[in-house]
């Protein structure tokens, strides 16, 4: 049985000029990168372009990559930094105001009542949107940490290394992010009870 090459072998092959190795790296991590960007910026339209930008940066710097961290966390760091820059640049904190968020929910509820036969897909999509919108209401530092924890399932130590912060700061940010998310999603949870 043929084993797929590990990250180290792929990086070494790329350094020797094998572009197929780079293609494999992109295929391996493109989905995670796209979702990190989506959860952090909350905008599907930006995902393709920013994911491409992440991998262009990877292509540009892979020759200098030293394996002082795993390839996986190095690529994530590039994605996270790009998202943070993007948030700062566009001041995306506007995201969704509480009023807008509530209005959206009420509209959703109204639509569900008007159309009792609305497909499960629509409801599922609305639920997703509620969570993604709630993430956008967090400050960028809290959002990044909670995405790495909840989506990437990174340990506190891995998050600390990826973001160059202390483990204590990770604990504190995760706690704050969860508190804020619970407040934002209060109505969502009431509905579930």
């Amino acid at each position: 049985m043929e084993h797929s090459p590990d990250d180290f072998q792929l990086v070494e092959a790329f350094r020797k000029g094998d572009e197929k190795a780079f293609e494999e790296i992109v295929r391996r991590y493109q989905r995670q990168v796209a979702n990190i960007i989506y959860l952090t910026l909350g905008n599907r339209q930006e995902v393709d372009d920013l994911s491409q930008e992440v991998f262009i940066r990877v292509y540009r710097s892979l020759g200098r990559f030293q394996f002082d961290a795993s390839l996986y966390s190095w690529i994530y760091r590039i994605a996270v930094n790009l998202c943070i820059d993007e948030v700062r640049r566009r001041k995306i904190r506007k995201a969704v105001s509480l009023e807008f968020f509530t209005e959206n929910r009420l509209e959703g509820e109204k639509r569900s009542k008007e159309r009792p036969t609305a497909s499960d897909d629509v409801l599922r999509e609305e639920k997703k949107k509620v969570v993604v919108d709630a993430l956008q209401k967090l400050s960028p530092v809290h959002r990044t940490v909670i995405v790495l924890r909840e989506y990437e399932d990174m340990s506190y130590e891995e998050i600390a290394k990826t973001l160059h912060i202390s483990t204590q700061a990770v604990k504190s940010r995760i706690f704050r992010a969860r508190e804020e998310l619970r407040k934002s999603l209060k109505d969502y949870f009431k509905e579930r009870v």
Partner: protein
Amino acid sequence: MKTNHPKRLLSLYADDELTAEQRQEVTDHLASCDSCRRSVEEMRAVRVQIRKAADVSLPDNFVYSVLRAARSEQEETVVWLSTERFARNVVVALSVLVLTLIGLGTFLRPEPPVRVDRYLITEPSDTLAGQVLGTQGEIPKDVMVYAALTK
């Protein structure tokens, strides 16, 4: 009776980041606290929802569009570097040319003529004196030096 809810520990509990002792403490508390139990459930529900929301996938040709963009960026860099190198060489060549011309100009510039007042000419028949009179009282410096040395 006021109950102390271990809010911060609940977050660590949900992530399994507590020591065995702390974990036991929280487990005991959860056994008798509906509110904290609900908090932990909500944290887990948020995690599930975040993972469900993360279902974005990229176009099938994504890999190739990345490669195309990366290569074109690389080519642009090469063109830019060679243009930059060419421009730098042109600037250096022009600087050398300008400095050479300035140097040559300084070296080849004729000496300013020497003015000789008419009343100093005592012998109008003298060639030098005649030259002075014929040139409105100015003669080249080298002629003047020659005259001074030979008289």
